[in-house]
């Protein structure tokens, strides 16, 4: 009975969020400004979803996500502008490179946790940005790669609108898959490793392996987000991939709610709202965002969706006949 109810809940979640994403696509299309906002939400969501697996589920605060985002973006830009290959190769190459970097970094830091892990990964993120600026032959240095041709698939030009729509759909696909992953045996093992690592090891699962897999998975998701970001803008500059973006996104799953990947998406939407969309927040937007995060951390640890769902439960339990 319970599993049936839970399954119904999962389907409800899948389709209601699909409806929301489709409405969003229909709402923003054609309006260049709204499309810019939408791609920012999609990019932040992808970083936040990438962070979700190792950080929220696994409890390891790895902060080098600006590097994975950058690898995805630069892979598309470099392949589209400097090689004869189609831009489409940039996506898998970016994802493979990010996963490889994440695994190597994860292996080098496998004995670190908490503060030590956070500071090494921040240092890696900073070093990545300075590498982007320093290796001008490959990445165009500080100027980045200004423009590359609009990608074409099967004779159809991928315009701004189409790429934005694809990016939003990708967010939906990734969030739905992560929601399933969370309940899968792998997801349960990752979540359990956070508090009961001995129990997980005792059931024959190597923690070091699942940590590396979850880091690689997160890097792949962030890289995909970076690729979409580059395709929409048809250019890349190193400033877009500075460590600041990690500080903007790392709190989004906490703000939105940790119990579902959709919390990360909701959080990403709120960040863009605070820092980009509303002109009244122009100067103080990031400060208000930071204070909001602190308030949520101190006073409302379950995040917005957590409270929404318990509110819903309360309501339905009242409505149900006893």
């Amino acid at each position, binding site marked *: 009975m319970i599993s049936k109810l839970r399954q119904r809940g999962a389907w409800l979640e899948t389709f209601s969020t699909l409806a929301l994403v489709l409405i969003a696509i229909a709402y923003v299309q054609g309006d260049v400004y709204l499309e810019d906002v939408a791609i920012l939400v999609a990019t932040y969501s992808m970083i936040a979803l990438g962070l979700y697996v190792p950080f929220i589920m696994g409890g390891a605060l790895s902060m080098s996500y600006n590097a994975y985002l950058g690898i995805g973006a630069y892979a598309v830009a470099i392949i589209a502008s400097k090689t004869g290959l189609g831009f489409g190769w940039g996506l898998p190459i970016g994802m493979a490179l990010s996963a490889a970097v994440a695994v190597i970094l994860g292996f080098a830091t496998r004995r670190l946790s908490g*503060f030590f892990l956070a500071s090494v990964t*921040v240092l890696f993120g*900073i070093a990545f940005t300075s590498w982007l600026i320093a290796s001008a032959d490959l990445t165009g240095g500080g100027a980045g790669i200004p423009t590359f041709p609009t990608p074409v698939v099967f004779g159809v030009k991928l315009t701004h609108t189409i790429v934005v729509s694809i990016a939003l759909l990708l967010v939906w696909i990734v969030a739905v898959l992560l929601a399933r992953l969370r309940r899968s045996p792998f997801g349960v093992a990752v979540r359990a490793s956070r508090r009961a690592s001995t129990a997980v090891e005792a059931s024959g699962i190597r923690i070091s392996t699942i940590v590396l897999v979850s880091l690689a998975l997160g890097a792949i998701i962030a890289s995909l987000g970076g690729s979409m970001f580059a395709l929409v803008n048809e250019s890349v500059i190193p400033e877009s991939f500075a460590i600041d973006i990690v500080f903007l996104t*790392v709190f989004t799953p906490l703000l939105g709610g940790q119990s579902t990947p959709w919390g990360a998406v909701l959080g990403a939407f709120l960040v863009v709202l605070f820092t980009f969309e509303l002109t009244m927040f122009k*100067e103080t937007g*990031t400060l208000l965002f*930071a204070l909001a995060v602190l308030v949520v951390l101190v006073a409302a640890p379950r995040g917005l969706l957590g409270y929404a769902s318990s509110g819903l439960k309360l309501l339905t339990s009242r409505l149900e006949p006893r």
Partner: protein
Amino acid sequence: MIQIGCFFSLVGLGYYVVLNGAGFFNFAIGPYTMFSGLASSWLVFIQGWDLPQAILVGIAATIVLSVLTELLVVRPIERRSGGEELPALIAVVAVLYAIAQLAGTLFGRRPLPGRPWFYFENPIQVGLAYIDAQVIVSVVVTLLVFTALSLWLTFSPYGKIMRAVGDNQEAARTLGFPITRVRVIAFALAGLIAGIAGPLFASKAGVGFESGLSYSLFGFIALVLGGTGSPWAPLAGGMLLATIQIMSSYFFGSVWLNYATLAIAVVFFAIRPEGIFARRVRA
């Protein structure tokens, strides 16, 4: 180099105090330092204040920020999570970000120069190197802060309690020491040290609202390099880190500063996380 070393050491000492008194790494120490430096620069250059008043206001503001971090953020979160590490880490990263944004909003987002505390008409020449007054001031102030702190830890009642808390918080609690008060004192001291370090170093490299993150990272590495065995250990760690950074960027170009720092962190954290001067416990 000496000046940068002094700076890293002071930030490392700020970590050391909170680590001893409250048992965790206060990553917000870099933004405190930045806040004090930027506040005093802003008062001097934009508001036209005299330097000493500006520095005192910067230090006072930093102490307040530091104590508020403990009272409003760290204490409630640690109480709820029962001493788990991750929630406190996330919270302190959020504080780091919030203080940077607060400073950016209050004092503007453009970096400001700092003003040296003393001038010489002619820099003293030692061999091939010229030493200007601010270097001497930095060294003297750093040594004074380190000496004062280690004397305080050895002789004052609260200093002794703080060392006891650093050794074993549970035992200290059982003995009835005022843990909560010691924690607040530790945060206030860290704020004081950061408040001094900020304006002292701003005169060398200037200060912007985003500088706090790298201060935090470099101070943390200085502490880990030096170890937590003695209040003097961060001084050694800071000097070592500054030497490696300057050497690598001098020989291989400025990008290598970041690469070298990353390499030190990875290697040192993995191989010898207890630092050079670890406390030896008699078993």
